[in-house]
């Protein structure tokens, strides 16, 4: 088991070097494909190997690794300073230096005496994360092979640094694996900062002014989180002699300040308000980055840490503040999406909103809430990743990210439209996982015995209503039908096989996790919960039956119609445009002998749900909650 873990952490680093050195074109593509296959196979083997086994914890006292930790930190700092100088940015290098000095001080004063018991561990929650990182992550890297080829074809003037791009992608995967298996906080911190660096490098990949600005924004905010993390480590060791995560969770009567600092790091990493702008800005990056880091994996690292700390957070000021931060972020970001046209921004705000729910679950800290949080991670990672991938394919074929240009996709690219249907359904249609998790979340939140309970109900009620609105708008546009000549339809043959394979695999996994939902719960999530809280939690059998019936209806009816529908007789008719003569449902004759195109634009009620006002409100409120989270320690004790 330990060997598999070490392999999962180490192999991606090797693969990163391999793909960077591989010659451009076919050799690099093959290197990436093989690495992806190996990583996903290894993750699946790990999961299979851990089936029904109890949690395991490993001493892993490796002198070489321990000696390398601090130099690695130093290297990260140097890289950031160098790039800060190169692009004339002062804040990020300054923060990096502060962070480094904190760790330097720690190293000098305590480095010699540290004696962690167990550096690595594995439990079923890590297994789930490993599956997400290993399978979904690999599929995204695979997708990137043909996506980046088409991306560079679209922008011939862009410097082609794909080898470096894949290097950072695999580096990131290795760091994520390290993060979820680390018990030693110093290990976790190093991997955490490597993910920050990877995000920074990938956002800035195109080196356009926008890319540079947003990459430094992401870097600065996440470095602030890193400083919080570093301070937490120093506090924990100096005050309690704790350097390991399991000891933090198990400790009785420890001050919550270091925990609050860790939570702050997690909140920033998951782009909760007031730190959401970095994730929104990160959307300038090529789509594989958005899919991998900024929806399915890196941002989940923040939530992962919070959920791990959940038992400590229950019924504390820190926990309550997290509930408010996460809940308010969920509500406001869902409302902002009502007026949003750029599909990548819609996906980004949706991601932040869903992360908000997961953060709130962690803040609640009950066993039901943690169950919900973990299930959310699974379902959201798959569905959101699929959506980002198809948006990327859309970008490369239709050259647009504006929802208004998605009309008639079901006619122009039916396979892609189908994938959108599965992805969007996965986000808000029952009985797909996200909705079912929301249902369990409502129940978990109702059981809270405080004013937070009605507040959360209101947040969930309004937020969920909003999500149905904008997803259906997008879906409707995609599924609108009009006759068109062959030249207007896109040639699906142009989409690379890597993209298709990855997207269909995502779709299949999306459906599978929906149907196998109780299995996932019983095999992975419930044992983890039971291990910590003593109880387990699940969805009743009767309700599962209802879900299955709904799922069957969702699948069978459309399929049946599509199959037998061809035999159904009907007379085709033109749409009604107040009696005007129309030309193939596209343009119509209007006054004074002119032809006007039919142009149908969605409602974007920005008078009520303006991004600016909602952001301002959310950022201010959440900034207050964050202050209370950290200081509440002192006033409410």
């Amino acid at each position: 088991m330990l060997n598999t873990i070490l392999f999962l952490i180490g192999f991606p680093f090797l693969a990163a070097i391999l793909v960077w050195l591989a010659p451009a074109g076919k050799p690099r593509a093959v290197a990436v494909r093989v690495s992806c296959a190996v990583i996903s196979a290894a993750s699946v083997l790990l999961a299979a190997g851990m089936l029904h086994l109890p949690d395991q914890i490993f001493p892993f006292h490796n002198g070489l690794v321990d000696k390398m930790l601090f130099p690695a930190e130093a290297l990260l700092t140097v890289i950031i300073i160098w790039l800060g100088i190169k692009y004339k940015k002062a804040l990020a290098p300054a923060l990096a230096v502060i962070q480094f000095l904190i760790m330097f001080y720690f190293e000098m004063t305590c480095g010699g005496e540290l004696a962690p018991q167990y550096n690595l561990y594995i439990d079923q929650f890590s297994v789930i994360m490993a599956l997400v990182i290993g399978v979904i992550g690999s599929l995204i890297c695979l997708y990137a092979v043909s996506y980046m080829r088409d991306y560079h074809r679209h922008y011939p003037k862009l410097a082609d640094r794909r080898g470096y791009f894949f290097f950072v992608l695999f580096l990131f995967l290795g760091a994520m694996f390290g993060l979820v298996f680390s018990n030693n906080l110093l290990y976790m911190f190093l991997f955490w900062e490597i993910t920050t660096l990877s995000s920074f490098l990938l956002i800035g990949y195109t080196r356009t002014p926008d890319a540079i600005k947003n990459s430094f924004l992401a870097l600065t905010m996440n470095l602030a989180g890193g400083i919080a993390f570093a301070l937490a480590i120093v506090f924990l060791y100096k005050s309690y002699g704790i350097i390991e995560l399991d000891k933090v969770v198990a400790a009785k009567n420890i001050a919550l300040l270091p925990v609050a600092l860790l939570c702050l790091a997690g909140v920033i990493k998951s782009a909760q308000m007031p730190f959401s702008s970095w994730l929104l800005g990160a959307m300038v990056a090529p789509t594989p980055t958005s899919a991998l880091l900024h929806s399915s994996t890196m941002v989940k690292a923040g939530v992962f840490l919070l959920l791990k700390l959940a038992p400590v957070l229950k019924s504390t000021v820190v926990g309550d503040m997290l509930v408010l931060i996460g809940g308010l972020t969920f509500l406001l970001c869902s409302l902002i999406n009502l007026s949003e046209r750029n599909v990548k921004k819609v996906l980004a705000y949706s991601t932040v909103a869903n992360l908000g729910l997961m953060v709130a679950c962690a803040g609640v800290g009950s066993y039901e809430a943690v169950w919900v949080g973990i299930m959310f991670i699974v379902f959201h990672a798959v569905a959101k990743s699929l959506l980002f991938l198809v948006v990327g394919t859309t970008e490369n074929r239709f050259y647009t990210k504006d929802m208004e240009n998605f009309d008639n996709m079901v006619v122009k690219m039916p396979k892609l439209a189908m994938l959108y249907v599965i992805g969007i359904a996965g986000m808000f249609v029952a009985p797909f996982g996200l909705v079912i998790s929301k249902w369990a979340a409502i129940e978990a939140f109702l059981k809270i015995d405080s004013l937070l309970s009605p507040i959360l109900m209101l947040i969930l009620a309004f937020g969920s209503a909003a999500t149905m609105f904008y997803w259906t708008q997008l879906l409707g546009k995609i599924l609108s039908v009009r006759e068109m000549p062959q030249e207007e339809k896109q040639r699906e043959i142009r989409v690379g096989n890597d993209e298709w394979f990855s997207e269909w695999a995502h779709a299949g996994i999306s459906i599978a996790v929906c149907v196998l939902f109780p299995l996932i719960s019983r095999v992975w999530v419930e044992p983890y919960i039971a291990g910590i809280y003593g109880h387990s939690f699940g969805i009743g059998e009767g309700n599962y039956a209802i879900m299955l019936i709904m799922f069957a209806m969702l699948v069978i009816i459309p399929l049946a119609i599509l199959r037998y529908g061809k035999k159904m007789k009907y007379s085709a008719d033109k749409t009604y445009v107040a009696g005007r003569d129309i030309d193939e449902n596209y343009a119509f004759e209007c006054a004074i002998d002119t032809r006007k195109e039919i142009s149908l634009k969605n409602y974007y009620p920005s008078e009520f749900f303006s991004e600016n006002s909602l952001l301002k409100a959310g950022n201010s409120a959440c900034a207050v909650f964050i202050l209370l989270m950290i200081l509440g320690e002192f006033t409410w004790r």
Partner: protein
Amino acid sequence: MAEILHIDKDEKLISYHAYILEAAGLHVHPASSAQAARAYLETARPDVIITEASLAGKTDGFDLVKEINAKYPGIPVMILTSVYDEMDDAWKDAFDRDKSWLPVYRFMEKPVSPIVLAEEVEHVLEEAGHKHA
């Protein structure tokens, strides 16, 4: 009001694009052959050029682009073509690995919605540092 030189054998396509491009404040000059394009360029400087890759021959558009870039380096060029599908794998692989021989700001494949085309033209004008009303 930016000026676009739109080069394509298919005049109907150019007028289809022009219908929307004009509405977006981009004036379109059509040219249905390389000669027509060269002739136009002798007399006027457009702000951006959109061209097919296959005009008289299969890939003579590429040659035209290189020629334009040599003679008029300040004008950004965009390729809007259906020729990519017809090239063989060897050419595609070579193109994938090295595009430096083709000095264009965009390489786009038909069909493209005219609305999207208008937006792309705006982006290219920004990138190339042009200012227009």
